[in-house]
């Protein structure tokens, strides 16, 4: 991987951390209306994994996967709009958190019922297979979600159908307050892959280079029509389940061990030693991150609240032709799903809110197009 690409990974890890730190501040200030769930500690896993995809691939991210969203080009403005429940958020204020997506840009919106997105990922991959594409789906979930029925149903079905899916388990040690030893009786969640007849590997999820390597192999497997593959990234949830959770059930010693393995600090050391990351480069990246976050927050703060008069609207999609996503002409205006038919505008998760700061620094394709 080129030095430039590595620096991009570093940028997105920093941006993810900074976005979440700011979100937490907004929450403490009472400006976020609902609960806040962060992926602090997951940055190597989420950013590293998403980096291994191509533009036409798809992610089915979950609530701690801001890093994946950002690598895919989800606008920081849209994310902040969403936290602040603005009328121009991707859900038009109808939902919060990271429950956003744009299918034309390969991001499927998630729901709070963790594990339920995994069967949906099968449907996206099934379509790719039926349409004879070389694209794949990255379907992450937590350790908690691996205990749901849909996890089993999805992985089994995907393997039977040889669907091009990379399952990424972000094992952060806890499902809310429940430690892994109360959730399952195995050491490595990648062992579950064996039961479904797919390759599985467990890696240090706080080591971005290990994530990149393992996910890269899994992506190659899925892309070569050999069926799904599974990667377990062992990581740590630095914050509580949500910001309402003090997480005082986590033993201090365990917390200290993991904090010493902070993924961003580790990658910084790696970049400094192996790729001579300079303090000037670091400062430049920090400045870009800060400017991007500031821009996103300012934008969201200035955005209007939803129009209460629309509360009963948009329950059903209108009639009209539907394009098969990813086919030539699929974004032709005559198709109901070409743009956001609720507003008559382009989908604003990715397209509309591209921050000038972000664009100046680097288009996400720079990384995404690497492989």
């Amino acid at each position: 991987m080129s030095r430039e690409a590595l620096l991009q990974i570093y940028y997105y890890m920093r941006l993810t951390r900074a976005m979440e730190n700011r979100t937490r501040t907004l929450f403490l200030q009472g400006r976020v209306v609902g609960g806040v769930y962060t992926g602090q500690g997951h940055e190597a896993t989420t950013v590293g994994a998403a980096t291994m995809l191509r533009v036409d691939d798809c992610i089915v991210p979950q609530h701690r996967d801001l890093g994946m969203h950002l690598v895919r080009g989800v606008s920081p403005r849209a994310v902040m709009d969403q936290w602040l429940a603005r009328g121009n958020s991707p859900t038009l204020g109808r939902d919060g958190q990271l429950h956003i997506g744009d299918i034309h840009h390969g991001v499927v919106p998630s729901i709070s019922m963790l594990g339920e997105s995994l069967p949906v990922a099968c449907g996206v991959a099934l379509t790719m297979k039926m349409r004879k594409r070389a694209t794949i789906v990255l379907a992450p979930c937590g350790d908690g979600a691996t205990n749901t029925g849909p996890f089993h149903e999805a992985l089994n079905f995907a393997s039977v159908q040889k669907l091009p899916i990379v399952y990424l388990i972000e094992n952060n040690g806890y499902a809310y307050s429940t430690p892994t030893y109360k959730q399952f009786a195995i050491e490595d969640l990648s062992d579950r892959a064996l039961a479904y007849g797919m390759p599985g590997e467990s890696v240090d999820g706080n080591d971005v280079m290990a994530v990149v390597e393992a996910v890269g192999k899994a992506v190659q497997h899925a892309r070569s029509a050999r069926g799904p593959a599974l990667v377990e990234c062992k990581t740590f949830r630095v914050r509580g389940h949500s910001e309402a959770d003090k997480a005082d059930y986590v033993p201090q010693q365990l917390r200290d061990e993991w904090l010493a393995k902070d993924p961003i600090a580790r990658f910084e050391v790696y970049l400094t030693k192996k790729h001579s990351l300079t303090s000037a480069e670091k400062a430049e990246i920090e400045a870009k991150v800060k400017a991007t976050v500031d821009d996103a927050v300012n934008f969201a703060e200035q955005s209007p609240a939803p129009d209460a008069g629309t509360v009963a609207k948009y329950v059903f999609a209108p009639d009209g032709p539907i394009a098969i996503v990813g086919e030539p002409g699929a974004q032709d205006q005559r198709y109901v799903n070409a743009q956001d038919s609720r507003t008559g505008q382009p989908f604003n998760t990715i397209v509309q809110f591209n921050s000038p700061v972000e664009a100046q620094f680097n288009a996400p394709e720079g990384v995404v197009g690497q492989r």
Partner: protein
Amino acid sequence: MSASAKKVTRNKVTYLEAISQAIHEEMMRDEAVFLLGEDVGTYGGAFKVSTGMLEEFGPERIIDTPMSESAIIGSAIGAALMGMRPIAEMQFIDFITCGFDQIINMASKMYWRSGIPVPMVIRGPSGGGTKGGPFHSASPEAWFFHTPGIKVVVPATTYDAKGLLKAAIRDNNPVLYLEHKLLYRMPELREELPEEDYIVPLGKAITRREGENITILTYGAMVHQCLKAAQTLEEEDDLQVEVIDLRSLAPLDYEAITASAKHTNKVLIVHEDTLTGGIGAELAAILAEDLFEYLDGPITRVAAPDAPFPYAPALEAAYLPNAEKILAAARKLAAY
């Protein structure tokens, strides 16, 4: 299959054959349409709705799945997000509960949240009368009727079975299509269908019998019990009963319901599903709220009792609404 399908359109077909024709024709018409479910391929489906389709369309469009309703419905949703038009078959509609979350939390809220349409159909055999017992006789409509974002249709005739399914497949939203297994091969429902392509639009009721003394609002297999009762009421009581077949429960045909109620001033509601919180409760509320001044008698409901669906023939017969129970309720209402 296409040759034989053509041949049967010139003859009378069953309700089940009409469903097969709808799937077949839509798959021929639109490459985005495909079918997935348990035993739908090699076996042709538990009720043989998809007989011969695997051979004709291949395993990528007629997909035999594992016994995994969440995977079936979830995969249909994922494909629909991509612009495909999947038909997810529930082997018996009772098993839809195994995929409940996918419908309630994933499919129904998707467009409203994200602006991405979910054009898909979930269909399967519903209803009782076949000694199916508590797990093969469900009328699940009320669970989904209550959920914004899902359309619910219930065909009562062979013509509607085909036309409503075609409309459901072409709709850009999740549509629950409840076919009644008692009607599948009922000889009386054999019908000659139009040669040309047609649909029955979602959200439009139909008047099965005109009358001026009482309106019966009903749907599904109960339409036929209501028509039987209406015939007896004309012959024995000189009562003219109007029978409205709702066809679509969501969206409801508000105009047709209220127009008939205004015309007859007495409304009887009949459904096979249990009484409390059923479709009838909502219909009664609409009538009470909006047509209070038009009503000359109590809004009356005939439905299954608030108990699970029983197995033994004597219990099943006692449980299901039928023409006699409808007759008794109508006579009581007519006396006002």
